[in-house]
């Protein structure tokens, strides 16, 4: 049976490309490995974090994990924020899709819904300047941001950050922030003009979280359990969209299949898969192929299919630093238990504004989280004091403790690339990744971080230390097959079509020519929706 389009992957890109194709009247076959959490989800009661901590005798099972997988004995690692109920998201990926690198730690997903099962839900539209290298304008992308916003449900404030992130017309009221963030925002507002003149802006982050009922989901229940469970289904997960599409009848979902390669023929594309349990090879036929497997996995499929093993393609990834801070205004103050665990506040530092346009660096983005629901024991090794005293100090500091995550933009350089390993076996999936920042990039990061932390100090947040968890830790991967106005070789056209092919379209982060210092997921979804819409018209 030949489908109009085969979509590979069920993450943010795959789910939204498939939705656009189906809304455009096409039939879709979605191929996915589709790992799910069969162990912990049912154990977690729909109650608040504090309530669970005080009452649930089975909490150790999901807080620590049956195999203590939630207790890390090593140093900081990529994906360390994943709790046992979320570890399935990346669980089998390294087995099926190995990455060889001594400079980059990759996190990939073979789960139903992909990395979208564990994302921070930040929805940040790209502006004209950030889209300058795209063959697509903000005006062309705008309707797709709106469509995706209506599909996934977005809550956002209209504040100082609207100019940087945009605010969809369909936005719901913003989430309430916690006591800790309230004190920081209050200080920001009292110093706003001076801070804005220096290029610093702050507000509530737009989030893919329903604050009013939406498509059978939400509203958010403020249980502070967002790192552990989705019991109110208020935070958007791509699997909600996949569920809707499957119920609609025009999407056939086939799981346990790892896509190995594609081969084009006169009538379309043949896609070869391997069953991850039995190892059986199977081929599926489609008129067009939509690759949404995630930047690194899509690179494997493309390079293997085109016989380009050993060839380097560029790789982008937001350099990331996190900084534990103490908010002095919260010392000795009680905080409300009614809260969410996602980013409480966002901040943008725009060097160009600070220097009257002399500084050409792109903006840097920071998010402020309150550290409450990830358990105290995780922090104690970082305190470098005895456990007994460390525990007592952390209990006092906890209401005042925050984590600032700082994202930097990323551009192509010769020292950031990946390549399929030249292997003896035709199915070897090892991807070699090399990622190094230039001295100039490191110096710029350092300079901007010091500036941002100076602003946070003015808001009462005192940094304890800067932690760089290593390259790859932002899990924002992109740029392997960038879109071009005049595509050739291993680049894509504006409709996501890979230049070397007739009917293979890329819709994940692979096609981004540049990575601004923003979470990229919302733009991946909007771009996937755009390409899905164009493809549906072409296939018609």
């Amino acid at each position: 049976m030949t489908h109009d389009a085969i979509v590979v992957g069920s993450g943010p890109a795959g789910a939204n490309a498939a939705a656009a194709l189906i809304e455009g009247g096409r039939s879709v076959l979605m191929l996915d490995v589709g790992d799910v959490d069969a162990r912990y989800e049912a154990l977690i009661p729909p109650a608040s974090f504090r309530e669970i901590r005080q009452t649930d005798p089975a909490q150790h099972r999901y807080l620590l994990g049956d195999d203590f997988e939630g207790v890390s004995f090593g140093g900081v690692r990529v994906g360390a924020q994943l709790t046992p109920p979320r570890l399935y998201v990346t669980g089998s990926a390294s087995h099926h899709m190995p990455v060889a690198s001594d400079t980059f730690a990759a996190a990939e997903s073979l789960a139903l819904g992909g990395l979208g099962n564990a994302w921070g839900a930040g929805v940040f539209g790209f502006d004209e300047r950030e889209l300058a290298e795209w063959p697509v304008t903000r005006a062309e992308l705008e309707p797709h941001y709106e469509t995706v916003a209506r599909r996934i449900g977005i809550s956002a404030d209209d504040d100082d950050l609207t100019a940087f992130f945009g605010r969809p017309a369909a936005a719901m009221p913003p989430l309430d922030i916690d006591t800790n963030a309230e004190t920081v925002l209050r200080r920001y507002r009292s110093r706003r003009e001076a801070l804005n003149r220096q290029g610093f802006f702050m507000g509530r982050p737009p989030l893919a979280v329903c604050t009013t009922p939406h498509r059978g989901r939400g509203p958010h229940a403020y249980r502070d359990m967002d790192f552990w469970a989705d019991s109110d289904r208020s935070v958007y997960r791509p699997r909600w969209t996949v569920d809707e599409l499957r119920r609609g009848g025009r999407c056939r979902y086939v799981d346990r299949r790892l896509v190995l390669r594609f081969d084009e023929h006169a009538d379309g594309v043949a896609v070869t898969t391997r069953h991850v349990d039995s190892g059986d090879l199977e081929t599926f036929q489609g008129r067009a192929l939509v690759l949404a497997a995630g930047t690194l996995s899509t690179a494997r499929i493309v390079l293997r299919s085109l016989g380009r093993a050993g060839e380097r393609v560029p790789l982008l990834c937001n350099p990331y630093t996190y900084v534990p801070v103490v908010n002095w205004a919260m010392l000795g103050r009680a905080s409300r238990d009614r809260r969410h665990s996602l980013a409480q506040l966002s901040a943008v530092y725009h060097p160009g504004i600070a220097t009257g346009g002399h500084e050409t660096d792109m903006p840097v983005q920071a998010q402020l989280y309150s550290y409450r629901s990830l358990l105290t024991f995780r922090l104690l090794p970082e305190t470098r004091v005895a456990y007994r005293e460390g525990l007592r100090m952390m209990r006092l500091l906890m209401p005042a403790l925050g984590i600032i995550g700082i994202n930097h933009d990323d551009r192509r350089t010769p020292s950031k690339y990946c390549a399929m390993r030249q292997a003896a076996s035709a199915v070897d999936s090892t991807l070699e990744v090399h990622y190094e920042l230039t001295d100039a990039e490191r110096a710029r990061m350092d300079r901007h971080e010091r500036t941002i932390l100076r602003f946070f100090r003015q808001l009462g947040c005192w940094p304890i230390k800067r932690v760089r968890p290593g390259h790859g830790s932002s899990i924002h991967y992109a740029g392997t097959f960038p879109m071009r106005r005049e595509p050739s070789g291993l680049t894509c056209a504006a409709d996501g079509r890979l230049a070397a092919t007739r009917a293979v379209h890329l819709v994940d982060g692979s096609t981004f020519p540049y990575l601004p210092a923003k979470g990229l997921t919302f733009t991946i979804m909007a771009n996937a929706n755009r390409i899905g819409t164009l493809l549906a018209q072409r296939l018609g």
Partner: protein
Amino acid sequence: MPPDHAGIAPAVDARLTREARVMTRYLLDRECPPEMLDRYARGTRRPDADRSRDGGDALADFAFAHPWSLPCLDAAAAVLPSGAVLRGKLHLMTAILEAAPTFATDFLPRHASRAGTLLQLAFHGAMAVAKALIGLPLLLAVTWRRR
């Protein structure tokens, strides 16, 4: 089947039982419930959890044989890499205690006035430094003696 009772030998290893009891008293001034002794024993089976299993660890062995020394050795081990095994055991036990309703109030945020908070932070900080100062020569002596 609840994992606490899955594949656990009826008699939990005596060494691990002693360790769990000593650490619970040290951390919380409380007694360790039996189910958490089991849980600790299971936790140490994780390959990266108890690096002392095969060859033993001089510092951890000494600390659990002489519980009076644990506060100072822990404080010293916090700043020296040679205390990694002892700190790893404390890390595991702290995690187990935190994920139990019995001890929830010992871990959830504690409210005090600002002055009270600052005073308590200063007190605990000073205690940690003092213990580390006593613990450092003890740690060096214990590890040197075993070489």
